[in-house]
């Protein structure tokens, strides 16, 4: 077990030590203590390690993650797990704005609430939120899955491409070109798997969710939709 005191040793030393692992390592268990809301903790990892942050983080925690499993035993600030490529990020508390933005792969689990713009422009990442999500979530989401056990805020899935959105609770409003879609057997199967991965299978059943996706009306220019582009 590698234990790192962020307050004593500093952010650059932490990220340098983690980047030095470079793909393969036998040092697979890491702990970070005293994060105290600091920014850019465990950014740019590319090694199959398990890292636990004991406390709340600031901006951009776990950004650009590859391979690593990062757990935050607290809440996370804006830009959590931005552009994740693979691996997993699990937050016990809440996440601030644009969690999982532009993610291309991997799994993001938020056990509390996520704020506005969760999954904005997601491109393949899977996101499971146990609580609620804020306004403009999944804006321009392109692929991947967003699962929300609670409620969604205004303008869910505005200008959505092919990402799938599953919401159990209420949706305050749908964004342009986002519509409710039928839940077919393959979706229930997918959702069951995502709930299991997201440590939420004991909290919700797939059939309790509604599915939202793109109506695909904005894909090609149509003068009648000019006001929606």
């Amino acid at each position: 077990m590698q234990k790192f005191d962020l307050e004593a040793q500093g952010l650059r030393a932490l990220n340098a030590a983690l980047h030095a692992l470079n793909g393969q390592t036998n040092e697979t268990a890491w702990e970070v203590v005293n994060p105290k809301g600091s920014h850019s903790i465990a950014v740019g990892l590319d090694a199959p390690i398990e890292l636990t942050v004991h406390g709340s983080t600031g901006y951009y925690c776990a950004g650009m993650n590859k391979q690593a499993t990062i757990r935050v035993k607290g809440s996370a600030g804006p830009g959590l797990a931005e552009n994740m490529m693979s691996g997993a990020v699990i937050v016990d508390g809440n996440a601030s704005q644009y969690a999982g933005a532009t993610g291309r792969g991997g799994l993001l689990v938020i056990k509390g609430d996520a704020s506005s713009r969760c999954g904005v422009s997601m491109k393949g990442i899977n996101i499971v939120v146990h609580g609620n999500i804020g306004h403009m979530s999944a804006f321009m989401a392109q692929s991947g899955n967003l699962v929300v056990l609670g409620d969604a805020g205004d303008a869910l899935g505005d200008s959505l491409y092919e990402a799938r959105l599953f919401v159990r609770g209420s949706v305050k409003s749908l964004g342009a070109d986002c519509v409710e879609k039928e839940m077919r057997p393959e979706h229930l199967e997918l959702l069951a798997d995502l709930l299991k991965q997201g440590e939420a299978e004991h909290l919700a059943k797939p059939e309790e969710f509604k599915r939202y996706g793109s109506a695909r009306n904005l894909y090609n220019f149509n003068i009648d939709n000019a006001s929606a582009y």
Partner: protein
Amino acid sequence: MCGIVGLFLKDKSLEPQLGAMLTEMLITMTDRGPDSAGIAIYGGADDGAGKITVQSPQPEKDFADLDRELKDAIGKPVGMVIRSTHAVLEVPVDQVEAARSALAELRPGLKVMSVGDSLEIYKEVGLPKDVASRFELAKMRGTHGIGHTRMATESAVTTNGAHPFSTGSDQCLVHNGSLSNHSSLRRMLAHEGIYTETMNDTEVGAAYLTWRMKNGATLGEALEGTLEDLDGFFTFVVGTHDGFGVVRDPIACKPAVMAETDQYVAFGSEYRALVSLPGIDTARVWEPEPATVYFWNH
């Protein structure tokens, strides 16, 4: 970017530490705004004394004998506490307007930072830690306060461009964001007889609230009004004689975190501004919703 903080105490036993707690929060926000810093602190209300905080670029010259000259002008006792470039003048609460008029005659170069019966404002150009130490903010006591670290966008880096802004008695405001319709609002407010002193967008935000309240709105209603009438990005934290309020615009791009315990309500642009507060690990911590007014009163 800008960093804003606020602290509203429920537990009286923390009042002697208000300045120290706010100072630490302010300094943590330095990298959101290294251009200037300011703090508004509320304390000693209802003691019969009115307070006028003034600022001068030449404090030795302007503050020399000012209390004696002001006493002669209004014929009432005047107290004066000098802190670096600022001085707080205490006069009987019913003499505040008379004292303000007399000050304009006696020292035309002085800038009035705030007026009221509990509010004092200290702000200057420079790093937050330097601003805090020149005014000895950490030693101040009070019931609630707000602070700001500025990364200048809409007007020059000057003392008067620093936050907090106060445009009404015991009212003040700090802002993270930028307003895009401040010029037209400034003209509208001038027509209504509310004049701003700088070209700063935030001062217009403060003046807007003053105007609404002057026309009978409660602070809550005035804050609701910002959502209709102000264009741009804003997270506002406001202080009044006995209250503390927060509002974010409907897009809510600017960050905000709040924490509440039995002892206090705290606001920070980032969570790390709050990490040294007592009991923060078990506090209720949340992000204020967009287009929603939050308000606490003593």
